[in-house]
């Protein structure tokens, strides 16, 4: 039987998703449901003096209106930060309370204050307009770089500083800098992005008055984690009385990791009003309240020799957390950022210092790549600049500093188990016809255009993560993953996973893995996820972890099934267990033609009835009936995908428009289970990264109003912004898991922003501009370049 792992199997889920048969949260309706509309703050920072709901309560169709006062009375807990980060001086991070409904103060535009439940959506909206909130408006703190100088947002959190974190050795870095031939410096802004999942957030809550169980249908990347947080911290209901279902979810990108205010409020309220509740975000609500991504201000320096050897690296970053610290909010700019900021290079000394600040803006949390895109942008801008200033070819300077022996002990934190960075960059050079660039540049110039080339090499730590490590770094839970595999008596297999698919294609890739392990057809395997009432437990999907952690739990559970099958088959075939080989779904007695299929064994495990008076149980003594196994997998290390991307852009100096002409990506994701799915992930990641580099930007005005809160003002990349992506792969197996897989979900978004920006800056003759490189900025830079060139001539 040919192996399914490694083959281009078409996605099983696409048929329903592409024919409109997906079942999303907003598709769910429960009879007698009420509709929720949230009253939100129009101010970035204000004290709430009074909330008057009297007029709204009398409005047509209103069932109930609840505010922060009731939440407080019922002692419903708030939203949480999942990682505890310590400052350089040893002090604990400062985290403000974040109640689900603001009671005394509001800290960003869109923060919910009250909620109206009505018989129809229109009635709920109309009544919400009648809720009168009296504010004392205060001066907001908006700008990332200036946040520490602003008024104190949260009582007791001085300078609006959550923590002042250090990773690395300042002294060693300073010593190395003193010996350097040259110091390369960059000042960078990693622009704030709004995740913009195609499906806006939504929840439908059904409280069962008989069983007192709450069922929450919601748009989550991690339903089990949501239940855990809502029970342990929210106090909404005990875990055994709370079922969280995340059905089809239309994209997450990190923005659906958090348990949000609306989910907590609606779950709590459903029990209170004893009615089902439906809430679906409008697009502007998504813009305002989904967790945003990135938003760093960085000064970084690289000490180099004249020959282009890297000696030391320093990184001083201010990271904007927004108004509150959320689940991955505090770890994203620290342990997901700092260790990767030295990139794929041997750099003997390094440090990263991050000051995380609160501002009166939407909370910032993980966004595709989470910390690693910011890290890669920092080091890859420095390296490209170093190549330019030293007059060394940009690929040569990289290869000069690549490690060639693995495992590679990276400067900060990680030991990278496997990789071949030289092979990746060489392949990318060859695939992109790097050598032919000069000719293409001349051709562009002949047409009055500017052409630039950019390279970036990255590695990332994903497959998050080894529990022992993440717990030692401050994570509130271990990040293992679980699976349960049920081999049904009639031959089909149900694979339950704690990972969650919201576009990743788990129905297909996980089925491929299980089908291979069990020797059954792909069609016999069903992957079940997204329901806390089904399967064991799970930490969910983020950090490119589903395959490298969740997939391995499936492998291990399948192997337990096979192991039990072997014991049962041995009894059935009347041989000893070690005489049996399992291959392609059959238990075969070596050197004989005696065999049992796994289907026959499974059937036997469930003890089918027999009229044979001589009946002997097929189960060995002490063996329990049934064929169901589970596994909790906790990897020994992160996994470390790596690669090199090369882009070419062409700029029209008359309009400033940047056209991506060529994009080559060579990635090492370890073993690839389904090339089709992996290519899709890489395409999506690159597109998202190019979006950040050229189009997307989140703008708050000086008073904290989000003025990019619709698609009129927030530019999403479109298909016609991209060339055909030229993808290639190298493969070194991960050693931390039996499949040798590494994870591919975020790599594209990690590598592409610096690749594109390096190309744009190259085209502009080294002139630095900030992301996004919009036509306006580029056009201005073209003017400067023209003047400079005229002067030189």
């Amino acid at each position: 039987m040919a192996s399914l792992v490694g083959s281009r199997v078409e996605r099983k889920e696409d048929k329903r998703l592409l024919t409109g048969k997906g079942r999303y949260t907003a598709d769910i309706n429960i009879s007698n449901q009420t509709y929720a509309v949230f009253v939100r703050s129009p101010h970035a920072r204000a004290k709430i003096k009074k909330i008057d709901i009297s007029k709204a309560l009398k409005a047509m169709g209103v069932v109930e209106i609840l505010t922060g006062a009731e939440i407080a009375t019922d002692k419903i807990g708030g939203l949480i930060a999942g990682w505890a980060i310590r400052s350089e001086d040893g002090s604990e991070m400062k985290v403000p309370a974040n109640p689900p409904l603001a009671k005394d103060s509001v800290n960003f535009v869109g923060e919910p204050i009250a909620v109206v439940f009505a018989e129809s959506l229109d009635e709920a909206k109309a009544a919400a307009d009648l809720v009168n909130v009296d504010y004392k408006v205060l001066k907001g703190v908006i700008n990332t770089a200036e946040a520490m100088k602003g008024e104190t947002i949260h009582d007791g959190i001085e300078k609006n500083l959550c923590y002042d974190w250090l990773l690395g050795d300042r002294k060693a870095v300073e010593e190395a800098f003193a010996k350097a031939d040259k110091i390369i410096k960059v000042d960078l802004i990693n622009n704030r992005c709004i995740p913009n999942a195609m499906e806006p957030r939504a929840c439908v809550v059904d409280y069962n008055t008989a069983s007192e169980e709450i069922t929450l249908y919601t748009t989550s990347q991690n339903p089990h984690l949501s239940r855990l947080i809502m029970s342990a911290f929210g106090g909404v209901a005990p875990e055994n009385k709370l079922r969280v279902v995340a059905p089809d979810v239309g994209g997450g990108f990190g923005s659906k990791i958090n348990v949000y205010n609306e989910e907590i409020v609606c779950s709590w309220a459903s029990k209170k009003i004893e009615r089902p509740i439906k809430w679906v975000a409008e697009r502007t609500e998504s813009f305002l309240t989904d967790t945003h991504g990135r938003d760093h201000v960085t000064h970084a320096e690289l000490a180099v020799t004249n020959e282009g050897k890297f000696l030391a690296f320093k990184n001083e970053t201010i990271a904007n957390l927004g108004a509150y610290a959320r689940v991955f909010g505090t770890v994203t700019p620290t342990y997901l950022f700092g260790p990767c900021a030295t990139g794929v290079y041997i750099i003997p000394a390094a440090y990263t210092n991050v000051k995380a600040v609160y501002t009166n803006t939407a909370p910032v949390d993980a966004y595709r790549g989470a910390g690693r895109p910011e890290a890669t942008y920092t080091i890859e801008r420095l390296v490209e600049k170093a190549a330019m200033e030293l007059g060394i070819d940009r690929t040569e300077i990289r290869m000069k500093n690549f490690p060639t022996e693995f495992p590679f002990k990276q400067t900060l934190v990680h030991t990278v188990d496997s990789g071949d960075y030289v092979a990746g960059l060489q392949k990318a050079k060859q695939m992109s016809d790097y050598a032919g660039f000069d000719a293409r540049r001349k051709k562009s110039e002949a047409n009055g255009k500017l052409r630039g080339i950019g390279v970036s090499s990255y590695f990332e730590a994903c497959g998050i993560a080894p529990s022992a490590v993440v717990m030692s770094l401050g994570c509130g839970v271990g990040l293992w993953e679980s699976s349960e595999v049920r081999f049904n008596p009639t031959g089909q297999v149900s694979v339950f996973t704690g990972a969650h698919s919201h576009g990743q294609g788990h129905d297909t890739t996980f089925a491929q893995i299980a089908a291979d392990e069990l020797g059954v057809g792909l069609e016999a395997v069903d992957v079940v996820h997204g329901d806390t009432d089904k399967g064991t437990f799970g930490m969910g999907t983020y950090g490119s972890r589903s395959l490298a952690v969740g997939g391995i739990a499936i492998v291990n559970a399948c192997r337990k099934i096979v192991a039990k099958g072997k014991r049962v088959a041995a009894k059935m075939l009347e041989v000893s267990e070690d005489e049996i080989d399992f291959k392609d779904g059959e238990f075969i007695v070596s050197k004989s033609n005696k065999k049992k299929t796994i289907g026959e064994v499974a059937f036997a495990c469930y003890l089918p009835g027999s009229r044979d008076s001589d009946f002997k149980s097929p189960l060995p003594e002490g063996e329990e009936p049934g064929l169901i196994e589970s596994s909790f997998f906790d990897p020994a290390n992160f996994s470390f995908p790596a690669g090199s991307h090369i882009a070419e852009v062409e700029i029209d100096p008359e309009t400033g428009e940047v056209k991506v002409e060529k994009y080559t990506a060579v990635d090492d994701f370890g073993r690839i289970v389904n090339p089709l799915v992996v290519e899709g992930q890489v395409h999506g990641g690159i597109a998202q990264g190019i979006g950040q580099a050229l189009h997307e930007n989140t703008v708050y005005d000086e008073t904290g109003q989000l003025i990019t809160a619709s698609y009129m003002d927030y530019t999403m990349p479109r298909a016609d912004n991209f060339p055909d992506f030229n993808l290639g792969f190298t493969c070194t197996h991960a050693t931390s898991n039996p499949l040798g897989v590494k994870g591919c979900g975020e790599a594209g978004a990690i590598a592409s922003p610096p690749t594109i920006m390096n190309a744009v800056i190259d085209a502009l003759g080294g002139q630095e501009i900030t992301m996004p490189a919009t036509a306006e900025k580029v056009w201005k830079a073209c003017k400067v370049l023209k003047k400079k060139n005229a002067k030189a001539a």
Partner: protein
Amino acid sequence: MKLSGSYQINLEKQKVWESLNDPEILKKAIPGCEEFKKNSDTEFTATATNKIGPFNASFTGEVELKDLNPPNSYKIKGSGNSPVGFATGEATVKLEDCEGGTKLIYNVEANVGGKIAQVGSRLIDMTAKKMADIFFGKFSELIAPELKVFKPDDGTQIQVSMNKSLENLFNKKLVYSLILIFLTFAGYYFLA
């Protein structure tokens, strides 16, 4: 946002000043105005209700006059609230004699928030500027006949610089809606 401009009204300064402090005239100049109340010599409240896009919004604006120096200048502090958002701001208004009448100069610093900012921010500067023009156009139209009554023996021809295209804009629903949104801004100008 910041906004500034000037307007020429072919009337003498004292008369312009008086008219700009007359609630009845101002009420007529404000689109959709239901109430324009003088709470004290320096405080006014204005209410207007209309459909603004998909919203059925009742806008309430509070206006306060400061640093009065009649008939030359003052400051106006205003704020307007509605379920679709709010606007707050301060305007300095100066009246200067000029050939054939009075020159009115305004400087506004204002902030808008809520849905107006989220959905319409790109239109705000442009619309506010247009609003100012529309308001003064309407205002001039309104005060011209009154002044004819008050000054029948004045032989000079009163010219009201009314822009016809602005008047047309005024009748369009979209602009009309936006006008309401920017009632607060208008507040500065009516009082000016």
